[in-house]
């Protein structure tokens, strides 16, 4: 169980990093392409990436506590 935690963190961090880089890349790309080398797409992209990663991480950590409900239709 402890390893899961560790694994989660690994995954999380890796994922966040990837997303950040991807966002950065996309931002860069966007900034380069669309937004005339402004920095805000980069920041935006990286921020997006970080945020996605962060959320993913959090969700991942929250996963055990999530309760899924199902709608039971009355027959």
């Amino acid at each position, binding site marked *: *169980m*402890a390893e899961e*935690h560790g694994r989660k963190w690994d995954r999380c961090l890796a994922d966040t990093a990837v997303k950040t880089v991807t966002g950065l890349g996309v931002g860069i790309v966007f900034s380069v392409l669309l937004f005339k080398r402004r920095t805000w797409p980069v920041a935006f992209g990286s921020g997006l990436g970080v945020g996605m990663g962060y959320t993913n991480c*959090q969700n991942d*950590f929250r996963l055990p506590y999530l309760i899924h409900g199902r709608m039971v239709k009355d027959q």
Partner: protein
Amino acid sequence: VAAGLLTVSSGIGGTILYAKWDHKFRAAVEKNVPYSDLLFSLALGPSSQEEASVEATHIISAIGEVPSVPAPCDTEAAAVKAVSASLEESLASSAKTTLQAIGAQEAALQAITQHTHKLKEAMEAEVPPQEKSAQWKDLEAALANRTCAMNDASTALLKANETLGSLKSVIDKSKGLNIAAVHPLVLAAEENLHNMIVDLDKVVTKVQSAESEAKIVSQYSELVNEAKQQFQREVSSLTPEIQANWKGLTGKLSADDLNALIAHAHRRIDQLNRELAEQRVREQIHIDAALEQQKLEDQKALEKAVNTTLQHVKEEARLEQERKLGELREVMEAEMRTQLRRQAAAHTDHVQDVLKVQEHELRAEAEQVLSSKMLEQETRYRQLNQEQLDNFTLDMNTAYARLKGMEEAIDSHVVAEEEARKAHQLWLSVEALNYTLKTTDSDLPTIPLKSAAEAVRDSCHDNDFALALASALPEESLHRGVYSEASLRARFNSLRSLARRVALIDESHNSLYQYFLSYLQAALLFEDEQKAPPTQLSREDLDPFKLLSYASYCLEHGDLELAAKLVNQLRGETRRVVEDWLTEARLTLETRQVVSLLSAYANAVGLGTTQAP
């Protein structure tokens, strides 16, 4: 003529044949007809010896008979034997002498007849002078022979008479002994004696008759001789120169001599005629006188003969009587014997009947006695038998009871031992199970407890409790094995830091920010490594850090249960983090509990079954 000749010859032949067959006839013919004996001796051989031989054989057979009469009556065997021996002896001697006498008499007879014959021949034959002298010599020899034979015969006769007399005396003596068995012997001897006497007498009479005949012939010959001599004398007186045997002279005589001779002859003839006439006259007288004499002699002879025959007849009658007596006696004896036998048979029958009756009685008595004894014996025997049987039954029963007791004891022993064995086995298997719990390397679980559990289950498959316990082992432990306390401790120690780090995270606080905060808390908060847990937990003690330190303390002190209990109080993410550890700890605890229960049970059972020595 031929017919006449034929008849004569046939007659002669017939007489000869018949004489050959019948000796008496031959003797009679020989006696009556003068030269018939010559004829018969020529034709048939001498006759008189046969009779003698017949008589001799008769006597010899008689002798032979007597010894063959067996000596009867064993009780007087010796006397009988002596008597019979003496009888035999005397019989033999008498027979011998009689035979001798008879032989001598026969010889004498023969001699006499020969002599007579010779005499007759000499008298009547016309033979030349030299032969005549030979004849006369022969005659003399015959005469001498005859006299000798006569003497012999007389001596033999005397001897025979002697012996016969002795035999008679012996017979009388033996008769005097009056032994019954001797009678037949005596009788036989007497008969033989009689026969011998008869034969002897016969022979003697024959000899006597021959003698008388001889006497007649000799007388005649003497007369003839006398006449001849007288004539010779006369002739010699007349003619002195003429020799004797004048019959042979023929040419020597002269005429005178012849005349004288004729005259003498005439004179002799006259004389003879006269004598003849005289004789004729006196013939009748002479004949009468002779007849008288003859009658007298005949009478005498007759008397004698009658006497002898009377004697003989008497003797025979006596013998016959004796024989008849003997036979009668024998018959009587036989009859007496049969009667006696009959009586004996009757007696034996009677005795048999009596014996049978007695036997019956005795048998009935004996049977009664026997039956009573038998009954007694039987009852006694039955009693003994019953006693024996009872004793035996008793013994058997006791033995059986003991056996049964022993068997039961053994069975119970067996059962107890079985129980003990089972308990032992259970205990062993439990120990094995126990042992398997220890077979851990660090951080590796034990070997799966399945086999041991199986063993335990096998060794207690009639014990529900143990079975239940054995089946209460958790599956994970069976298949995978459990972790040891040491490994759990180590793991906990490694888990503790993580648990500290996520101490603030739970269902509601589980964002990353919280994560960050909890990390910060873990980094800044310091608690005791190990802290002894209180006996009762309060609310403050439910703080994860405290709990962890309590649990550490418990683990360090080997109380996995309490540690597990304390760890169980964790909530939130820490709980999730230590969840695995907790299940493992639970497994281990469960297993350990079951095993300890089993071992306790096995111990208890073992204790229960082991017997104090």
